[in-house]
């Protein structure tokens, strides 16, 4: 039984300002930034799609000469890199940016300026990547850029460097977004919005944010090491001096596997929003869906070596990672069953978003099942790096994430733009995409089993290969037509399509409780939040049940933020530490025994003392003793600077003795690990100085803006704490072994 929804107060028309061009460059509003992400990613999608078409044209017939091998290698590298880093991930984060604050009843993200900064880092990182084409040296070592192919002398030109630098820039933005999303979810939920009332899309986005912090720094560390090899003569992955190319794979895939869940979990969230709304009943098993998302996230950092089963890790490692990879199938399968149970007994409306969601369920299941085949080690030994895997990952990322993105586009376009996309045209596009997608990627499973390897610019004229490849090319062009038609329909709708109401789909989550598009401040007033479906409760005149007391909502955003950032640093330093421990005694020549432990211990005491003085300064500040605070604060800066001077002079002495970063594996990893720590100390000194200057002008009087001081203090204590670990493992360990 439905009741007409009581009117939700919406802003007057004059309160909705029309856009000016400059607004897009200066905005810090999460909705504008979300649109920027979506529009920019859409542009990169067209480029990545063009790269896909170039690949398919080259592979349409055997021994084709459309692209020479150098061009082909660049195109497939950039297709993968673009689709992963510049399309799927930013689109999903763009939707999260727009929708999560609305779904939790917040005014904006926790850190709006950081949000804008993240977007510009994404854009400029992408531009750096594509600048490589203009420079004549596009990246061409594959999206995972294995060593030693990516090292000199096998890649002498700059393609690898543009790849690493472009992604280092975008990754900085991605990590910042991870911090922002997590803090927003923890601290900005509206009253009544308890953890188990969050919409599933918000849940999945928050879990994804955690995964970003846990995983991306491993890629950052690996790329830093690669650049240090290429330009400072280190030997991390240089076989000729004892470096281990398999280390690259470990560091890369420690990031790479969670990355695919970063691309899958928000997609699961989208499907978990769309199916209930268009089946007119709640998601089946809310708790299980959330728990399975958490399980997937935790497991995903324990499966990475299933990309390395053919590298020769040994039976024990293979068995462990095979088992963990099969285990992760359980929470994933649970979601599929939940979605099916949501459909069952529903009242199903086949609007366009629902069509994409249903196709997702089918296609993700296929991709998930072939994924399990790869988890079973011996089958991987047969199918690894063949077209069977190309089929697998396109089914989960294309038939999965891309289709979810299309569902989200149709579902949230009215909310974001205030216009409706055309349902009739939408159906045509859907069927083009559905047929085109399956025609392109299903035959790949067959070709893989027939023996076609991936990343090959051509193939021999063997029976059936040409026909299947040609069919795949046709499918690709069908998808291209579909995407172009969608772009056209978006353009048409923006220029004057039918206006959308506040809640065209009769959804139940908070984004539908405001105008389409929402005003700058998001909500005139929030309905009472008594469950995961506040608008359903409103329509059915239910009393709002009070949420359980939840201390997390009162945590200070910057403190949660710096804690989240430090969590990401744990992965970064963890990667460098693990590398150091592997390499410290592996090569002849300089070793930890060549380090002057007492000298460094002395300088370390200065660093540890600076943590003490920071603490004392904060205590003075608590008593509003500005002079005392500043005295201890300046002392901290001086102590920290002494430590840094000690490190610089230590380096100078080592270099004077001929012990440089390129001497051997120990020195490569020693200078890199302690060097990055020194960089963090330096940045910390800058932050302490800024706080000191602000303190001098009286910014922290009477308890004002204490949070800023606390945040910087926590960072400084982390820099000290990590030095305890590094000092022990680098200097002290050398004394006992």
């Amino acid at each position, binding site marked *: *039984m*439905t009741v007409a929804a009581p009117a939700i107060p919406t802003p007057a028309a004059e309160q909705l300002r029309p856009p000016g061009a400059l607004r897009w460059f200066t905005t810090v509003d999460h909705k504008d930034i979300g649109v920027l992400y979506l529009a920019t990613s859409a542009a990169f999608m067209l480029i990545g799609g063009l790269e896909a078409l170039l690949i398919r044209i080259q592979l349409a017939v055997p021994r084709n000469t459309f692209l020479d*091998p*150098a061009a082909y*290698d660049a195109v497939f590298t950039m297709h993968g890199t673009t689709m992963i880093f510049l399309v799927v991930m930013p689109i999903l984060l763009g939707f999260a940016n727009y929708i999560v604050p609305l779904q939790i009843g917040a005014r904006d993200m926790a850190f709006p300026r950081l949000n804008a900064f993240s977007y510009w880092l994404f854009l400029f990182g992408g531009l750096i990547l594509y600048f490589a084409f203009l420079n004549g040296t596009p990246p061409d*070592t594959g999206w995972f850029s*294995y060593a*030693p*192919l990516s090292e000199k002398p*096998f890649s002498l030109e700059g393609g690898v460097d543009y790849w690493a630098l472009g992604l280092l820039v975008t990754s900085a933005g991605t990590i910042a977004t991870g911090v922002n999303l997590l803090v927003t979810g923890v601290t900005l939920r509206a009253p009544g919005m308890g953890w188990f009332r969050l919409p599933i899309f918000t849940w999945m986005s928050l879990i994804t944010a955690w995964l970003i912090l846990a995983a991306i720094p491993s890629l950052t560390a690996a790329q830093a090491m690669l650049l240090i090899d290429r330009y400072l003569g280190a030997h991390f992955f240089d076989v000729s001096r*004892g470096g281990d*190319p*398999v280390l690259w794979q470990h560091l890369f895939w420690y990031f790479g596997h969670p990355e695919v869940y970063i691309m899958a979990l928000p997609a699961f969230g989208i499907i978990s929003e769309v199916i209930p709304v268009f089946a*007119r*009943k709640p998601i*089946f*098993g809310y708790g*299980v869906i959330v728990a399975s998302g958490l399980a997937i996230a935790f497991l995903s950092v324990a499966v990475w070596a299933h990309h390395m089963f*053919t*590298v*020769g890790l040994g*039976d024990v490692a293979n*068995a462990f990672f*095979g*088992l963990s990879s*099969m285990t992760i199938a359980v929470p994933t*399968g*649970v979601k599929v*069953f939940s979605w*099916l149970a949501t*459909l*069952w*007994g529903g*009242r*199903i409306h*086949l609007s366009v978003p629902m069509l994409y969601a*249903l196709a997702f369920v*089918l296609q993700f*299941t296929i991709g998930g*099942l072939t994924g*399990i*085949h790869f988890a*079973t080690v*011996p*089958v991987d*030994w*047969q*199918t*690894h*790096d*063949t077209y069977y895997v190309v089929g697998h990952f396109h089914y989960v990322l294309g038939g999965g994430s891309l289709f979810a993105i299309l569902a989200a586009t149709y579902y949230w376009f009215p909310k974001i733009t205030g216009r409706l996309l055309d349902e009739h045209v939408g159906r045509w596009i859907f069927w083009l995409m559905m047929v085109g997608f399956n025609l392109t990627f299903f035959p790949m499973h*067959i070709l893989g*089993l*027939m*023996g076609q*390897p*991936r990343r*090959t610019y051509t193939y*021999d004229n063997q029976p059936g290969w040409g026909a299947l490849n040609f069919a795949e090319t046709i499918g690709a062009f069908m998808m291209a037509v579909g995407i172009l038609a969608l772009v056209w329909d978006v353009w048409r709708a923006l220029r004057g399509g039918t206006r959308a109401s506040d809640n065209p789909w*009769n959804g139940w989550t908070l984004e539908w409780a405001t105008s389409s598009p929402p005003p700058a401040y998001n909500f005139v007033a929030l309905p009472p939040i008594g469950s995961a479906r506040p608008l359903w409760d409103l329509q059915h005149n239910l009393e709002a049940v009070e949420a359980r007391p939840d201390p997390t909502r009162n945590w200070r955003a910057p403190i949660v933020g710096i804690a989240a950032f430090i969590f990401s640093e744990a992965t970064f330093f963890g990667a460098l530490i693990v590398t150091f421990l592997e390499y410290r005694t592996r090569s002849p020549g300089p070793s930890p025994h060549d380090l002057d432990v007492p000298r460094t211990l002395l300088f370390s005491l200065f660093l540890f003392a600076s943590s003490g003085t920071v603490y004392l300064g904060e205590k003075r500040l608590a008593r509003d003793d500005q002079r005392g605070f500043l005295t201890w604060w300046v002392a901290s800066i001086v102590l920290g600077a002494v430590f840094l001077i000690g490190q610089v002079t230590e380096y100078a002495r080592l270099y004077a003795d001929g012990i440089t970063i390129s001497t051997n594996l120990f020195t490569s990893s020693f200078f890199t690990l302690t060097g990055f720590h020194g960089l963090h100390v330096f940045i910390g000194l800058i932050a302490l100085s800024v706080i000191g200057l602000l303190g001098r002008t009286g910014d922290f009087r009477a308890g004002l803006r204490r949070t800023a001081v606390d945040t910087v203090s926590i960072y400084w204590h982390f820099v000290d704490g990590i030095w305890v670990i590094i000092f022990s493992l680098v200097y002290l360990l050398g004394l006992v072994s």
Partner: protein
Amino acid sequence: MPSFDPVSPQGLSISNLFWFELIVSGLLLALVVGVLVIALTRFRAAPGDATEPPQRHGNRRLEVIWTVSPAVLLAIVFVLVIATIRTVDADQPGARTLRVVGHQWWWEYVYADPQATTANELHVPTGTPLQMSLESIDVIHSFHVPQFGWMQDLVPGKANRMSILVDRAGVYDGYCNQYCGLQHAWMRVRVVAEPPDQFNTWIQQQREPVTPSGARGEQVFLQNTCVACHAIRGLPPTADIGPDLTHVGGRSTLGAGVIDNTPDNLRRWIFNPQAIKPGVLMPAYQKLGDADLSALVDYLESLK
């Protein structure tokens, strides 16, 4: 389909596991498709229907069942996985050893006992356990012959071990399976599996050095930079930067599988290998006159 036509016990073991997985996957997929189709027919809303169905939030029993059953199924599969790993990667006592060395973009094969070195075309005796030591002198490669059933990588700085026993005579094609640069696509593997007596004849022939004859083609080979990269054992000096050519005339393909081995193709290859396999690490010999080139081709094809 080569992956399902294994010619080794290792491949058979994997193929059996894979069939089992495909059948189970097919059944699961049919279940999902079935539920989708039935749900879409039974529970489709009539146009304009704004009513709500019963608002079921979940069913604890069902959720437990569909969490535990896949876990049990996967546990069973895991047991089969361990058993298959142990079959495939088992030690084969008394195995012949063979070094497979990957280069950008060709294969070097070094037999032990008797010792012989050849390139690109691998001969193996049927019914004989082989242990391959997979090595690389440059980047990561991977040795994959689908009908062997499994592959392993050639990682520089490591020697990976791969056990195989080919139980059926025939010619089997494979390829390098780890992206290794410009001509990864044409680093093909051709395996000729033959009965042990035929294999022994072949390997004795491979061990024979040539007798210097002073033929024109031989002189062309020695007086140009060919000797800087290629070895023809019996002619000094020897180099191993490029494939060993001592018995190149007997191979069925050239350029690691990019073209068939015919006099015309060999001529085209020497004249300008870049036109056939762009990026290959061999320079063009367009400066050789027609007569010299013909002599060289005849000479090389005579090295059977």
